[in-house]
């Protein structure tokens, strides 16, 4: 997707996971996504470092679409992710 289009994503909901450490960061993000309908966008505020490295990868691994990760400049990042309902796992 072209860079200019990326700025157009409007989050439908927000979650702050800066108060917890991995893997609860990911779990809180999953819980927030669970509240959303398929295709909706969640903005997640997470700490730089471990959370910023792991949470996008874990969400991608779950099948969700990671749209953008931006540095907030205050030790936190903003992650935009689109909910993609996973197929049932056997």
């Amino acid at each position, binding site marked *: 997707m072209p860079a200019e289009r990326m700025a157009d994503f409007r989050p439908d909901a927000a979650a702050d996971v800066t108060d917890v450490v991995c893997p609860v960061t990911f*779990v809180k993000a*999953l819980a927030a996504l669970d509240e959303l309908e398929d295709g909706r966008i969640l903005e997640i505020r997470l700490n730089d470092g471990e959370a910023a490295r792991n949470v996008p990868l874990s969400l991608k691994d779950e099948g969700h679409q990671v749209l953008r990760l931006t540095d907030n400049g205050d030790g936190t990042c903003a992650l935009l992710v689109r909910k993609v309902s996973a197929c049932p796992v*056997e």
Partner: protein
Amino acid sequence: MAFNAEQLARYSRQIILKELGIKGQQKLKQARVLVVGAGGLGSPAAFYLAAAGVGHIGIIDADEVDLSNLQRQILHGTDDVGRPKADSARASLLALNPETEVRALRAFVDAGNIMGFIRDYDFIIDGTDNFPAKFLINDACVLAGKAFSHAGILRFTGQLMTYVPGQGPCYRCVFREPPPPEAVPSCRQAGVIGALAGVVGSLQAMEAVKYIVGAGALLTGALLTYNGLQGDFRKIALSRRADCDVCGEHPSITAPVDYAQAVCDA
């Protein structure tokens, strides 16, 4: 159903499993599991189910805690000796997870009460120590259309299988009827290693979790045996018997039945 921050943290290590996720955790919270027997098998089974966030656990036991139980029945502590096992079990489960709804029942299961006990539950764990109770639980679960986990342990060996209505054999398909009371050694006579109860009871909890969240393959149509002394697990394929007295095509058992029990088992 949303989880609060504390719940997300408590269950985080299993919510991150793809096979569970938030949905699986919700299923666990809504699940009702009945554990028959708060002894060697029921202790680890109920303990892990409470830990996993199963919303409602029923636990039935008529006995009181005896000092000789503590070697394997890890729901009970030294201070509980003399206390009803159902009460002691409830206290331990709530200490581990205060969010669990625990219904403690001080009773022996028999043909007259078993159907009422299992009615409100999704999954039943047979943690009893005698054949009459095992056949009673099997027959009641078949008649009521309930899934359950059978297990038995003695000395260094244990076995378990899972019954799901319409899938594979029931316990009676495999073992037909209880052996004569005098032919059977009880744990009291024959001995048992505590860790064996931990292994097999934990496997029963595993079956319950898989059944509730709908993940993986259950031990239906198979008997898993464990020989602790040799360190061997074996999985034996089993099939349903068309002439089974309770789940067969022309069942002769249409209501739970009581069998005589060896005096030393009581």
